[in-house]
């Protein structure tokens, strides 16, 4: 969203999305972190985080995001999602130490949120730039 880049969208959309960007980030992390107090949680907050990629695509439709790297980050977080409950929940550590229960829920919500956010972001970018090229692709 730097000024020297020519964007196809009007200055109104660019300015409004630029102003909304931090609030979308804030709402996403609010929904994720308050997942075990209020309605919401990892999947919902991750979807809100994925709208950041959509907003960036609307304003600045250039394929300069390394979606392979986003996918790698998503896979690392998925591995943590699989490993941490196996290590803490299924072995009974969380059940035995009540002080760990709150941090465990917050940690899992955070991991799931980031994983879903990056995953949906990769999906959105792949579809967006698949359509945006405008040439037919044949196998």
């Amino acid at each position: 969203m730097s000024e020297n880049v020519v964007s196809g969208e009007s200055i109104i959309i660019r300015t409004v999305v630029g102003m909304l960007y931090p609030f979308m980030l804030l709402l996403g992390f609010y929904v994720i972190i308050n997942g075990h107090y209020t309605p919401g949680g990892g999947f919902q907050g991750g979807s809100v985080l994925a709208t950041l990629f959509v907003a960036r695509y609307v304003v600045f439709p250039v394929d300069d995001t390394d979606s392979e790297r986003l996918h790698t980050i998503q896979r690392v977080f998925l591995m943590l999602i699989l490993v941490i409950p196996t290590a803490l929940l299924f072995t009974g550590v969380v059940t035995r130490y009540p002080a760990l229960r709150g941090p465990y829920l917050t940690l899992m919500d955070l991991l799931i949120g980031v994983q879903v956010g990056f995953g949906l972001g990769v999906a959105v970018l792949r579809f967006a730039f698949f359509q945006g090229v405008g040439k037919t692709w044949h196998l």
Partner: protein
Amino acid sequence: MRRFLAALLVVGTFAIVTVVSVRNRVELAPFTYDYIVQNFHDDTDSKNAVAAILLSYRMYDTMFEALILLAAIIGMTQFLPRPSDMNGDARSDAAQEPEDAADE
């Protein structure tokens, strides 16, 4: 005729399953429901029963939901063409796709 028979098979299966499931209604004992509603705060320290179920009682469900998302994205990244595939010779780029998949 084949389409009519296929449609008849689908609709007939739906009707039979609906009738059978309505006639033989199974009422489960509300043991799990009562247990979770009464004990979720003590068990998981969560103030939200949905979060308690998703992150503690039914953690396997959440883990495999996340895996489904990964499977969807792997399918997308492998089968949707990249912009570089569309500009040049698509055939040769497409032939190199399986090697990329094997590296991961």
